[in-house]
């Protein structure tokens, strides 16, 4: 067959690419400027070294923030595990990964007196997932809720008061999912009446699994973050569990008919915090950065960042936001005299997004893969 060689070389390119990436994964990542004194190496979700957030700090302290971006806690742990100690000075992590970071001995103990924790809402002053043995390892910077996001042209708020709507005939083939097992299965677990949603007995786990699989025919697709936006906007998905205002607020401001509710079964809370990593030689600068981020000014910047609106834990931050940007405070539901984002929290319907405690993460992941291909 005369054409075979050409044919094989195409596969060759593919396999070469795959192997090269595998090789890259085994080699150790080393930041270009890791050891320069004026550079602060920052491991974080994308967008957190946006000039809007950090340029004031950089100017004040005559330094440069070098970000290494990750998407998802697994990737963060992979990057840390593959880098020599001292590659990064600080990390922004989701609360559910804090105990993994602590167990792997990556985190420096922090002195609570260094940070304006007293400025925070009482609920967040001693946020349980950031403290180990009564010692502080991460300072909360922002948070948000995950519930059920839906198309407001097609559904009335009372229709989406319960996660049950996902199983309705009206929603058949129109329930989108964020392609991440944790929030998606967390909401299904809540709808099955499990609180807290991630501490499931074997029976509870089996029941949640059955409930999840009964949703299979309702699914429109499993989306990456970028596709979540387009699927809600173009009508491919009419509702998506496990996401929140960090997606729908931006869309709504662009004119898309979407909103997020916290159904009666409850919602999840994601929480981000800043920690100093062991092995850093720039402890002081890192501490200053955390102080800056949790200061009223830094908090307002976090809340009003263009690409990703966040709720902030600092009361002082709320005050400054209401004084200087009242319009934003209203949109972000961070007004003191109006129904605000702290209310749901006080109603006790918010559960922390946590890693499964009684099953290996792998089991949850496998079920998610199984569900998608079912």
């Amino acid at each position: 067959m005369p054409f075979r060689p050409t044919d094989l070389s195409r596969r060759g390119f593919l396999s070469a690419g795959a192997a090269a990436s595998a090789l890259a994964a085994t080699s150790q990542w080393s930041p270009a400027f890791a050891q320069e004194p004026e550079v602060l190496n920052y491991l974080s979700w994308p967008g957190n070294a946006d000039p809007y957030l950090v340029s004031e700090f950089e100017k004040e302290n005559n330094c440069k923030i070098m970000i290494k971006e990750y998407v998802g806690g697994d990737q963060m742990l992979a990057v840390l595990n593959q880098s020599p100690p001292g590659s990064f000075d600080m990390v922004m992590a989701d609360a559910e990964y804090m105990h993994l970071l602590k167990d792997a001995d990556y985190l420096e103990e922090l002195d609570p007196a260094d940070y304006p924790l007293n400025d925070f809402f009482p609920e967040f002053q001693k946020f349980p997932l950031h403290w180990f043995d009564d010692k502080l390892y991460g300072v909360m910077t922002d948070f948000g809720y995950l519930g059920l996001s839906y198309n407001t042209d097609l559904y009335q708020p009372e229709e989406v008061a319960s996660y049950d709507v996902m199983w309705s005939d009206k929603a058949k083939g129109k329930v989108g999912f964020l392609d991440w097992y944790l929030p998606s299965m967390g909401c299904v677990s809540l709808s099955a009446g499990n609180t807290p949603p991630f501490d499931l007995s074997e029976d509870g786990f089996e029941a949640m699994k059955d409930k999840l699989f009964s949703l299979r025919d309702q699914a429109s697709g499993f989306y990456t973050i970028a596709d979540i936006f387009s699927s809600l906007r173009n009508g491919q998905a009419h509702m998506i569990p496990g996401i929140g205002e960090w997606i729908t607020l931006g869309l709504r401001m662009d004119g898309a008919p979407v909103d997020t509710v916290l159904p009666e079964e409850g919602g999840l809370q994601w929480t981000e915090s800043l920690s100093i990593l062991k092995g850093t030689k720039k402890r002081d600068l890192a501490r200053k950065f955390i102080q800056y981020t949790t200061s009223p000014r830094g908090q307002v910047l976090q809340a009003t960042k263009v690409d990703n609106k966040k709720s902030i834990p600092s009361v002082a931050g709320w005050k400054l936001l209401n004084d200087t940007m009242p319009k934003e405070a209203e949109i972000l539901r961070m007004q003191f005299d109006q129904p605000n984002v702290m209310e749901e929290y006080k109603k006790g319907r918010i559960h922390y997004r946590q890693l499964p405690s009684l099953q290996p993460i792998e089991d949850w992941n496998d079920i998610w893969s199984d569900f998608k291909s079912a």
Partner: protein
Amino acid sequence: MTIPLTPTSARQPQQRGRLQSMTGKTIKAAIGPLVLGLPLALWQICFFVLPLGFLGVVTFWQVRNYRLQPAFVLDNWERMLGSNAFQRAFVHTFSVAAIATVLALVLAWPAAQTIALRLSPRARDRWIAFLILPIFSSYILKVYAWQVILSPQGIINSLLTAAGVSSLNLLGGALSLQIGYMTLTLPAVTLILTFALLGLDRDIIDAARNLGCKGPTLITSVLIPAIRPGIIFAGSTAFLLAFGDYGSPVFLTGSNPPTLSILIVDTIKSGSQWPRASVIGVTMLALPAVGFLIVTMVKWLLKRTRA
């Protein structure tokens, strides 16, 4: 070596002289292709054989604390090949790629036959240029464009709604997936078939026509058998492109259900499982090889039984 057309008797003295210098000439004749082929061989060794070997080796490694560690465990193979997700993704990917292959061949054939056998040389060149053009534009961009066109509030549905027809669910499903696959495969398949038909000796077609063969019979009894290698090449190109594609299943079906290439990404995303992802990769690479082996064996068996 060209075949001398002179009668045997006249050739004999010359042949003897030739025999004497044969070894020197053979070496010289062999060096040329060797030198010319060397860059490609080196390239293939560096960027195909070695990585492929590495990919195979990695399937036996393990991941500890998100770190890849050399080992020799069969766990990755057992887990992947035994998992429902993998088996279902394999069957799904294989069947949609097979459908895409048949669709591409059927859709490309009339165009290829028209371009190769009906058009004037000038028009033919123009159409071939038109077919090459899409290869220069980004495939992912085209897939995104299809998303805009097919989505519930997209172009087609806007037109339908304006015309008073209820909107159709076009995005997410077999139809949108095959539209994506055709975007990827049709230009290449049409080009291959066109060139295969262009290489055909026109006398064969004329002879067939003179003997009263026309229409569908001409295609099935003359054209298809005559360019069979071209068809097999076009088909395997379509199959491999669709089988390994990531863009269309992700953006046009929302990974619903996932294909093997999506499963590779998922496997790495959840826990940096490079070894298990490599198992999928090796299996995907082995498939064409196994297919080729089966075809060769069947051919050999057929030849034997005939003999």
